[in-house]
């Protein structure tokens, strides 16, 4: 529901009211943070078996979004996106990337949750099911491209400020470099996206074919 709000806000502010990208950011800021953070409940539901999604896939999806939001956008890009500080040379790409990110995230969530909601009520119109199992074909690549763009834009600041890092020498003889952590997560996207994509494609084959069969009968 929150996601629908975000989608609606984005569309309204960006297109209908002709607002600047900074206005879009300010409008979606709080609902976005609340909605995405609540998404960790999806992991809990999957773990408890309340929902039938596989735990590993759900965890991967939720963690990547939470990391992009709280690990990249909010700490690094927020000043630029809210229009208060510019990152030299990047603002147009940052705003475009953020807008596509919002559209991708919000659209896929609206499709997913309306499908789940209707399923609970027992009445899923074909449109809803078709969207849920076809939307990802465009939304996954757009979403991942937007997420990686956000990371790419944030990297110079992350490595320059050495944020969220522990350095040696110290008493625990241990070090963590957030730049390297970001690189590792980005590298995990490489096998991660094909896996998720193929999973959804096979689900699509099963569900849409199964529906066609039952309609024939």
């Amino acid at each position, binding site marked *: 529901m929150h996601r629908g709000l975000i989608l609606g806000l984005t569309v309204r502010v960006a297109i209908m009211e002709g607002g600047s990208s900074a206005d879009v950011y300010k409008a979606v800021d709080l609902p976005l943070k609340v909605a995405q953070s609540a998404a960790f409940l999806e992991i809990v539901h999957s773990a408890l078996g309340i929902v039938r999604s596989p735990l590993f896939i759900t965890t991967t999806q939720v963690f990547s979004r939470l990391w992009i939001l709280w690990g990249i956008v909010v700490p690094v890009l927020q000043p630029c996106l809210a229009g208060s500080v510019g990152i030299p040379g990047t603002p147009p790409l940052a705003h475009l990337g953020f807008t596509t990110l919002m559209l991708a995230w919000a659209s896929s969530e609206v499709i997913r949750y309306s499908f789940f909601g209707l399923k609970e009520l027992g009445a899923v119109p074909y449109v809803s099911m078709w969207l849920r199992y076809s939307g990802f074909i465009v939304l996954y690549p757009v979403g991942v491209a937007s997420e990686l763009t956000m990371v790419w834009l944030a990297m110079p600041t992350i490595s320059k400020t050495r944020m969220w890092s522990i350095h*040696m*020498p*110290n*008493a*625990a*003889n*241990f*070090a963590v470099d957030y730049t390297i952590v970001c690189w590792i997560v980005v590298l995990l996207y490489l096998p991660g996206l094909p896996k998720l994509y193929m999973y959804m494609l096979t689900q699509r084959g099963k569900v849409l074919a199964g529906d066609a069969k039952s309609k024939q009968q």
Partner: protein
Amino acid sequence: MAPFKLAIQSRSGRVIASLDVSGDEAVMEVKKRLHATGKVPHPCRQRLTLLPPPGEKRGRVLDDDKPLSEYGLADGSAILFKDLGPQIGYATVFFWEYFGPMVVYPLFLLFPQIFYPWNKAPVQHSLVQQVACAYWVFHYAKRIAETYLVHRFGHATMPIFNLFKNCSYYWGFAAFVSYFANHPLYSPPADLQWKLAFALAMACQISNFYCHIILANLRAPGDKGYKIPRGFLFNYITCANYSAEIWGWALFAIGTQCLPALLFMLAGAGQMAIWAAAKHARLRKIFDGKDGREKYPRRWIMLPPFF
């Protein structure tokens, strides 16, 4: 004993083979004959079980050394076959998973110019770092020696995937600990701290070795039954060998004052806790004090006073 027909089927119910067997034939013989039909892989990949009793998921596993008569099989009986997948010898896996850390750890000490290329100044390692390296190498050399000279394995093989899984764990942690313990910016702890810690850690290694000797001597060669371990720390703790191992690594972490070493100890302790709980439960189940069997004495599982 009169020969009878035995059907061997897969879990889906498909009959794989039908053999004429006799009651005094050992299960291993049946496995060899199945392999000879060409339809079934090598005996060490075969798991043969009785059909599951109603309401249960798995039937009783047939022991290689026992005769078929043990299992009450008669003419027309069926048993189930499961392919365990490609197998590899236990000793082979142990060797590679211990050889890696033994070789990988010293690399960071010996070749800082490769592993810390951004560090241009010549690296001077403190005495504790050299002692830690010697301790680490000795530990894994000891484990390899025990694999070939002390341990008696309950099973001959394990799935080959375990080789990659176990080596990733051991080799990965060796690199992780060594990278920080031999780092150019490493800060050694106080002299008394590391000398005392490593002295006690060596005592733990010796205790652990003695525990392994006791365990190896529990069974006579060929004897497959479970025995109650006794003597030394086993009088108080079921898995005293794990206890000594964990304390040893805790002391290594204190001696090096290195967080990655602590994480390594916690990871190992977690896995050993799972194994220890299972072993403790198994021994208590077998030695229940009935039918002339001993009752398993009250003991800690692995880490007194809590566990």
